[in-house]
């Protein structure tokens, strides 16, 4: 797609060369073929060093653009960005792609639906009413129980188990808001990557990334009802107990343990070997590894126990 097509879709003028664009990305990760966007003054440094050739920006950031950039000045970059994501969203079904490739000794139930462009390894089991979307890749020996839905472009590793009713790659929860309070969809054009030896419980939801990938790393085990939002990165060999939720773009180091009904805000970074007891509510990043935490607001587990003892005394 050419930059001029983006401009006409947004009903705005573009300045510079009419460069060709294949996708969108955030500033710091964007490639020369991608459309980037800068919402706010605080991104001026990232903007200067961005590799992208085309940008959606606010007028105050024009001076920080890299030399030879093409750009569109937007009143509301966030809203224009949302509108532009629609242009890069992919079709759900692509009949023109080649038929799925299914490896040796794999079993696909007659009631399962495998879209075109899919690659499935050997010794894989896909049970009734499972749905495997366009271009999904699945490794070897993986077991997918009934009624699992895997959206397009997701990648599932080898030796994984995904229990019934789980949804991998549904749209992340992303909207830009108009002045009149309406919510405009930010199309989620990234994917989900599940590495090897991961087990995902029943009725979990792992959302696809806006751009790039939501990643569940090797050896991690999720219980039932785990919600992993878009662009999260869950470290190796972590454990998540039932009914836990993780907000968007939060990153976990390896071997974290998260007990039941805990929740994490978005954009956090959690050090390796962190442990959270049941119902922890985490709103700040954890930088030191090996800690044990509890409560909401979150505190050291020992401190939480002391606090609870004091609260109990209030009643005496």
């Amino acid at each position: 797609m050419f930059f001029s097509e983006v401009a006409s879709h947004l009903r705005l003028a573009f300045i510079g060369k009419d460069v060709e664009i294949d996708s969108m990305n955030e500033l710091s990760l964007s490639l020369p073929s991608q459309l980037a966007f800068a919402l706010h003054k605080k991104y001026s440094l990232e903007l200067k060093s961005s590799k992208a050739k085309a940008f959606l920006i606010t007028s105050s950031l024009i001076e920080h653009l890299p030399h030879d950039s093409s750009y569109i000045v937007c009143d509301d970059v966030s809203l224009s960005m949302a509108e532009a994501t629609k242009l890069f969203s992919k079709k759900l079904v692509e009949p023109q792609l080649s038929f799925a490739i299914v490896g040796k000794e794999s079993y696909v139930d007659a009631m399962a639906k495998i879209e075109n462009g899919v690659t499935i390894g050997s010794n894989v089991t896909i049970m009734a009413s499972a749905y495997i979307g366009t271009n999904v890749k699945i490794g070897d020996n993986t077991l997918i129980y009934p009624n699992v839905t895997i959206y397009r472009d997701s990648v599932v590793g080898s030796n994984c188990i995904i229990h019934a009713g789980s949804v991998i790659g549904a749209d992340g929860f992303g909207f830009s808001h108009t002045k009149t309070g309406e919510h405009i969809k930010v199309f989620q054009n990234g994917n989900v990557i599940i590495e090897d030896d991961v087990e995902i419980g029943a009725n979990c939801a792992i959302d696809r990334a806006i751009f790039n990938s939501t990643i569940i790393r090797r050896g991690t085990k999720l219980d039932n009802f785990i919600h992993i939002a878009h662009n999260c990165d869950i470290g190796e060999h972590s454990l998540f107990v039932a009914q836990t939720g993780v907000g968007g773009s939060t990153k976990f180091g390896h071997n974290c343990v998260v007990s039941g009904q805990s929740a994490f805000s978005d954009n956090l970074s959690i050090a390796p070997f962190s442990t959270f007891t049941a119902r922890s509510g985490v709103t700040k990043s954890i930088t030191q590894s090996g800690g044990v935490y509890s409560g909401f607001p979150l505190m050291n587990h020992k401190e939480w126990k002391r606090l609870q003892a004091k609260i109990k005394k209030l009643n005496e």
Partner: protein
Amino acid sequence: MEKTSSKDKEAKRVGGKNMDLKEIVKILKCDFEGSSFDVTKMNTLRDATKSEISFVANSKYIKEIQSSNAGAIIVDKSTKEFVPNATVALVVENPYLEMATLSKYFAPPIEDETLPQPKIGKGSVVSPKAEIAKGAIIGENCTIMAHVYIGANTQVGDNTIIYPSVTIYRDCKVGNDCIIHANSTIGSDGFGFATNKMGEHKKIYQNGNVVIEDDVEIGSSTTIDRAVFGTTLIKRGVRIDNLVQVGHNCVIGEYSVLVAQSGISGSTTMGRNVVMGGQSATSGHLSIAPFTTMAARSGVTKSITKSGLTFAGFPLMEHRLWLKLQGKIARLMKH
């Protein structure tokens, strides 16, 4: 349908069937004294019978070792001496980890082509888009809607309604007059892993089942995990709301009510007519007295022995104390 990966070949050969003790010893790379026997399955120290093999997770189970009827027990050096004379001791370095290794060999195949065709009772309607695995038995006057999956050997009683996209794994039992709403999952694997020194988690195969007695209603998108050994039991007349999690080996007493988004951790046992409010939760291995009521968002971490009381809060307290405390907290903000 059977898995046939080279890695699984060994497991597949014996999957879900009896195993000679000699084979088990080979897998665990240990020795044994006494005579070999046919091992039928794995079980807890308390429940294991002569033909079954058990294990010692840690030294606090010494009394249970001494009174166990298991045919063989996987122990380490320190617990070996407590094994009864009639029982074979299998000494390994890490019994819990070896138990996880062995559990795979007792896992039955997910579906089994050698089982008889499923039986559907008189007057039952099964959607052509539903799948009933071999060995399953559906009673009379049931309604089984589109995209439902009923696993191998699972039994469903009479007059039961199963809404679309419900998944019931193999070997489970659903009673008469039950209703299971859309997208619920019954009999998925309990969350059980043995962790090695490298921090990697080895799956403990969940070879038990789920039994749902008569007249139970289960909401949509609820999950009830299968037992590791034995049964996760939902007794007669229980009402379960949407998005409820019931962990492996739980027992939910008759006529209990679990409101939306509540979570019951593994091996917790409830008496009859317990009420769990919305988003309330319990720890594992608790015992909750009959007629206990938990208000919304309760967090239960200790067993409740006295029946008929109402609780609230996390940490949990009696509801009247919780109300008093909330009054005091409100007053804190006035100064």
